[in-house]
């Protein structure tokens, strides 16, 4: 049996990465390497105000004093920061109001990725900010949203148009010195999305950012800032892909979320960066800091992530539950195949009374990959009656992969209740045979079983993307029988 399984795994994990193409477009880049000059140059290209440059420089000097974190269950090759291009942009104006001004090659690229930028063709009810390499290409439905007072634009634009908002919130939940990669991002970030939902407004459509790395030797460092004012609601989704290249590319992003009184933010990610080939060559190094703060009473932040891509993933979307009765949620499916490595999870920091958090993590490992869940639940002294429920399940396909769970619990309040459940299972031969006996071949059976396993999390995704995510899970695991 073992040899049969190995054969199937070896034969079939060769499924092609669908988004691996490169777009031929003239790119404006700055020279390779990281220095104070690089930081100044990026700020200058973006025509930034002085305070923004100061923020960057402070972060840069902080970064120089820090070390790459080594506590994760990851084998991270040394990254040569002097060998990376920190700014690359398709050669044209920074921003377009009308689609007619956008280079047809770019429109074609996003069409190929299934992200049409023509508003009439786009998914009903989804506004998109499309980011290629270092800049935002186009944001759709801006006028419709503006009527409600909603700001949805590229980060660079927000710095110019809404400096007070940016100044007030930037770096307040992920300070530049938070960690090594956050410091790097704060110094060299190039673009990203900015969202502001005014008081009492329920955002009428899904907001979405689509990130695409295209240029060679380039790192992508985007920054997303979402502010939900009192009694507002927004659902936000990010997607990402990259060309297939033999060398590794770095992606170090920062996402900050602020939920004020009774505000609710739902943040969903479908992460599909290029994972490298079946021998572990190439792929994106994905080091991301995502954190939200429930500042207001009864506010809520919910993270849902489907992680299938990247050679290395280091990512812990977290919630600081400061407001009384605030709610934090983390729903995650992380799939690793071939030589992929993922160390992902969450932190739930309970500060407010009656705050609640839920963690549901489903790890799926195949091939020779390593998949770890790492999570912290912290309840502070004042967080009376707070509750957490964590469930961490691991599913193994094959016998060459690894699944690991690292839960950390720090409780300083004895009126709180924290529950943790964890399971590890293998896709059973009996399950596969049962499906086979009903006429389902092994490939399809694995997709079915894995989607069933991850259903609890997939159900949390907005409808438009749940179907896409299901297909993605199936493709990522093609052939990895266990």
């Amino acid at each position, binding site marked *: 049996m073992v040899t049969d399984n190995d054969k199937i795994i070896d034969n079939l994990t060769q499924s092609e990465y669908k988004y691996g193409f490169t777009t031929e477009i003239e790119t404006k880049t700055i020279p390779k390497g990281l220095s104070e000059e690089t930081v100044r140059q990026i700020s200058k290209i973006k025509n930034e105000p002085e305070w923004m440059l100061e923020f960057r420089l402070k972060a840069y000097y902080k970064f120089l004093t820090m070390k790459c974190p080594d506590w994760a269950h990851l084998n991270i090759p040394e990254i040569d920061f002097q060998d990376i291009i920190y700014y690359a942009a398709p050669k044209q104006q920074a921003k377009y109001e009308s689609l007619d001004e956008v280079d047809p090659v770019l429109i074609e690229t996003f069409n190929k990725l299934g992200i049409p930028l023509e508003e009439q063709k786009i998914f009903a009810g989804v506004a998109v900010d499309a980011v290629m390499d270092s800049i935002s290409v186009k944001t759709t439905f801006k006028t419709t949203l503006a009527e409600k007072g909603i700001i949805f634009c590229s980060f660079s634009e927000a710095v110019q148009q809404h400096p007070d908002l940016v100044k007030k919130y930037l770096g307040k939940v992920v300070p530049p010195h938070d960690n090594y990669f956050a410091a790097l991002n704060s110094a060299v970030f190039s673009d990203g999305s900015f969202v502001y939902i005014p008081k009492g407004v329920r955002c009428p459509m899904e907001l979405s950012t689509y990130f695409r790395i295209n240029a060679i030797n380039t790192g992508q460092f985007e920054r997303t800032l979402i502010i939900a004012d009192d009694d507002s609601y927004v659902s936000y989704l990010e997607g990402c892909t990259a060309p297939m290249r033999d060398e590794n590319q770095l992606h170090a992003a920062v996402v900050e979320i602020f939920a004020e009184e009774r505000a609710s933010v739902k943040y969903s990610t479908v992460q599909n960066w290029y994972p490298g080939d079946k021998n572990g060559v190439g792929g994106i190094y994905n080091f991301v800091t995502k954190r939200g703060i429930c500042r207001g009473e009864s506010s809520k932040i919910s993270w849902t992530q489907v992680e299938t891509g990247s050679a290395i993933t280091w990512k812990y979307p977290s919630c600081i539950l400061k407001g009384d009765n605030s709610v934090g949620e983390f729903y995650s499916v992380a799939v690793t195949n071939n030589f992929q490595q993922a160390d992902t999870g969450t932190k739930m920091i309970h500060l407010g009374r009656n705050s609640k958090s839920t963690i549901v993590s489903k790890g799926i490992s195949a091939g020779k990959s390593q998949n770890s869940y790492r999570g912290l639940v912290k309840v502070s002294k004042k967080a009376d009656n707070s509750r957490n429920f964590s469930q961490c399940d691991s599913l193994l396909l094959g016998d060459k992969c690894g699944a690991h769970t690292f839960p950390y619990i720090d409780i300083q309040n004895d009126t709180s209740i924290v529950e943790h459940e964890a399971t590890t299972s293998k896709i059973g031969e009996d399950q596969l045979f049962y499906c086979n006996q009903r006429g*389902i071949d092994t490939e399809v059976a694995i997709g079915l079983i894995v*989607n069933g396993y991850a259903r609890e999390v997939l159900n949390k995704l907005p409808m438009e993307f749940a179907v896409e995510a299901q297909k993605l899970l199936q493709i990522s695991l093609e052939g990895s029988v266990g």
Partner: protein
Amino acid sequence: MSDNLIIDKYKTDNIMLQIKDLHASVDGKEILKGINLTIKAGEVHAIMGPNGSGKSTLSAVLTGNERFQVTQGEIRYKGKNLLEMAPEIRSREGIFLSFQYPVEIPGVSMVNFMKTVVNEHRKYKGLDPISASDFLKLMRDKKELVGIDSQLTNRPVNEGFSGGEKKKNEIYQMAMLEPTLAILDETDSGLDIDALRIVANGVNKLRTKDNATIVITHYQRLLEYIVPDFVHVLYQGSIVKTGTKELALELEEKGYDWLK
């Protein structure tokens, strides 16, 4: 003889399944030691025998479970070489196993599972996927036919089902697929008398002159409801006696010892 000629001959003779000198083992231990069996369309064959006689091994080998290795012999199904077919192909060719221990698949609803199953079978026959409305109608009709509780179909496959519900669910799937050769492996085990009647009724309703059924059981109780044309006694890996339904009664009375 060429394959096509063999297939024609089996058709003319109305032979659905022919097992010749079948030997099979698991983990190097020989379980089946020379089985010979011929089943014609329209027939019901009961296979009885004490624990460990090889009954379930036979059903596993017929359905292509890779845990079991065929070391000798031949199986022809509708004239075709069955041992060359992958398990899913055997299914699509009309072989259905009602499992002794149906497997749970958490998170996969029966609706989703059955729709996948039905469409895999249709694809094999060169048909387009079934429409949602036709599929729902098919499910309704078959549920009625086998008298299954309608709530079962909205739940994940076999998850949290009672023993009786699991067995009913097997017969329901059988009704959905209308197999040519159905193998019921200890379908009566764990069923109370009411559930047994429902299951047996379902099986009987699905009988036609064109399909055949193999009933594997310990007890003759099930055979009161599903009346066999032949009863075979399997003992230590071979068929030691073949008779009609009266043989089952005799076994009930005397046990298996007198056959040794």
